[in-house]
């Protein structure tokens, strides 16, 4: 049976400007400005962080294992998120959520957090040093930074089954959830010289399966760091997606992936479409399939392991039907309540039907289409070539997080969430996971919490040894379970006494 699909998104934002053009300094200014604004400065507790552990159980593959930087700016927000500097980017790691719609809300709240952080940081910077943030995944010059999704998966599922079952989705889902970009920027991507690609990220993938995230990126990442009871759970760390400006795209990306993982737990891998013979080629090929908007181009196909030709559309269609079978059998409760499941399946279907029949009808929900429409329209109006820097500027400025500059904000994208809710979610934690306990503790006892991470909080009451509160189960620590405890605990000492008593 499927485990509850606790999930969330972490996004490294693109950053420009800052004193001396130093992106690490600029990223630190962003994080510290927001920490000051939110009056929250909490150290990250690295106990329990093991990004070098490989889900395949391999050792000796450590040369490319992620290096954890322990001294950089970091804070934990009252909404349960982590805001910190990762490499040379400010990163917002949203709190764990119970449903795809809730996780979408906390991803959008991250945009609001970054916007506030940028405004706060720029107040103390000279005009020439102003910082601008972008919610995107590449700079157009061969450098990429990630938007990673995380899903709770049962430990009972062998990792090889996850790889086999999920590859068709991971290579094809960019058709619906890619953010699009002008041209190509890697050696592999430039071979066929595409004018436009559906995904920002796809051309950066070089391996099928692996532990690395910063080089030789794998379509399926094996980082085995569950941030939960490792006997029962895995956390599938998905690194192949794009950052979305479209809320519908974020929602359906999370929802479809969660449903397919739940279907895998329910049915096993045999119900899934056959994976592509060459997944790395498939993900790059499907990224360059412009047949949906350009009738002169023919649909891209890859061969699956049974020798059948598959388009990205055919894969998504088959996966939609598989998800529907899973819902017919179980109701989909492991992923979301029935009203949300129904919204999810309707939207997923609408994107698929729209892209096939008339893509202009889903350009309000699919980022690469919204952006393509702008670029193609602007190109025609001003009679520009594909190499025009003005088109490249549109491709980039689509992701500018400032409302007065963002082109995504002008694309007429369908809003699933109200601005009021997104702004409230900057400060309030989700009620449905342990993120509630983390966020409320940070809000109520900011002076006593000395460090935090995903699965524990460390309190310092000034009376000697530190007190660690473990939170190994992501679905405990919810509002329903702990609200009364907080109401009865005006101080951190009260809270710890009650937890121990």
């Amino acid at each position, binding site marked *: 049976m499927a485990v509850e699909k606790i999930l969330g998104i972490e996004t490294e934002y693109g950053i420009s400007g800052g004193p001396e053009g130093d992106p690490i300094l600029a990223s630190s200014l962003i994080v510290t400005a927001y920490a000051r604004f939110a009056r929250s400065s909490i150290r990250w507790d690295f106990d329990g962080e093991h990004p070098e552990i490989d889900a395949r159980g391999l050792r000796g593959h450590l040369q490319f294992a992620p290096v954890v930087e322990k001294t950089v700016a970091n804070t934990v927000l009252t909404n349960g998120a982590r805001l910190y500097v990762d490499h040379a980017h400010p990163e917002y790691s949203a709190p764990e959520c119970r449903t795809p719609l809730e996780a979408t809300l906390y991803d959008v709240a991250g945009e609001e957090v970054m916007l506030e952080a940028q405004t706060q940081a720029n107040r103390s910077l000279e005009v020439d040093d102003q910082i601008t943030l972008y919610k995107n995944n590449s*700079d*157009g*010059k061969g450098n990429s930074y990630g938007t990673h999704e995380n899903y709770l998966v049962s430990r009972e599922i062998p990792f090889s089954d996850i790889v086999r079952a999920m590859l068709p989705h991971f290579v094809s889902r960019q058709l619906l959830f890619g953010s699009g970009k002008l041209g190509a920027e890697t050696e592999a991507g430039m071979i066929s010289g595409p004018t436009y690609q559906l995904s920002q990220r796809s051309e950066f993938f070089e391996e099928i399966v692996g532990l690395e995230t910063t080089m030789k990126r794998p379509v399926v990442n094996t980082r085995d760091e569950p941030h939960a009871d490792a006997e029962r759970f895995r956390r599938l760390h998905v690194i192949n997606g794009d950052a979305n400006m479209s809320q519908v795209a974020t929602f359906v990306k999370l929802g479809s992936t969660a449903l397919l993982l739940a279907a895998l737990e329910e049915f096993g891998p045999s119900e899934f479409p056959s994976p592509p013979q060459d997944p790395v080629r498939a993900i790059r090929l499907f990224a360059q399939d412009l047949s949906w908007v350009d009738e002169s181009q023919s649909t891209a196909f890859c061969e699956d392991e049974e020798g059948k030709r598959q388009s990205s559309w055919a894969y998504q269609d088959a996966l939609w039907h598989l998800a529907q079978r899973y819902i017919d059998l179980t109701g989909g409760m492991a992923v979301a309540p029935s009203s949300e499941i129904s919204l999810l399946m309707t939207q997923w279907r609408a994107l698929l039907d729209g892209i096939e029949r008339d893509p202009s009808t889903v350009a309000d929900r699919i980022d690469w289409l919204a952006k393509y429409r*702008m670029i193609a329209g602007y190109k025609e109006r001003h009679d520009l070539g594909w190499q025009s820097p003005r088109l490249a500027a549109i491709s980039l400025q689509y992701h500018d997080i400032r409302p007065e500059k963002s082109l995504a904000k*002008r694309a007429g994208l369908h809003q699933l969430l109200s601005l009021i809710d997104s702004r409230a979610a900057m400060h309030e934690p989700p009620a449905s996971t342990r993120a509630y306990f983390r966020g409320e503790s940070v809000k109520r006892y900011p002076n006593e919490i000395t460090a935090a991470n995903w699965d524990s909080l460390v309190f310092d009451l000034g009376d000697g040894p530190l007190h660690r509160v473990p939170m190994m189960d992501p679905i405990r620590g919810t509002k329903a379970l702990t609200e009364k405890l907080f109401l009865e605990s005006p101080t951190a000492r009260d809270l710890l006494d009650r937890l121990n008593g």
Partner: protein
Amino acid sequence: MSELERIQKQRTERSETSHEEKEASSAKTDQLKADLDDLLDEIDIVLEENAEEFVRSYVQKGGQ
């Protein structure tokens, strides 16, 4: 019939829609065209002035 022809035929069949649907869809297409014109006007206003310098200077360090 080759696999490619078969799939293209399927796509065509699926794309066939009723007269009413076509009319509704053409009204929607007109609306979308008007929206696009407004959008392009707005891009002219907000697009970074020196596009070449803007694009050239956007260089990131790689991340995860």
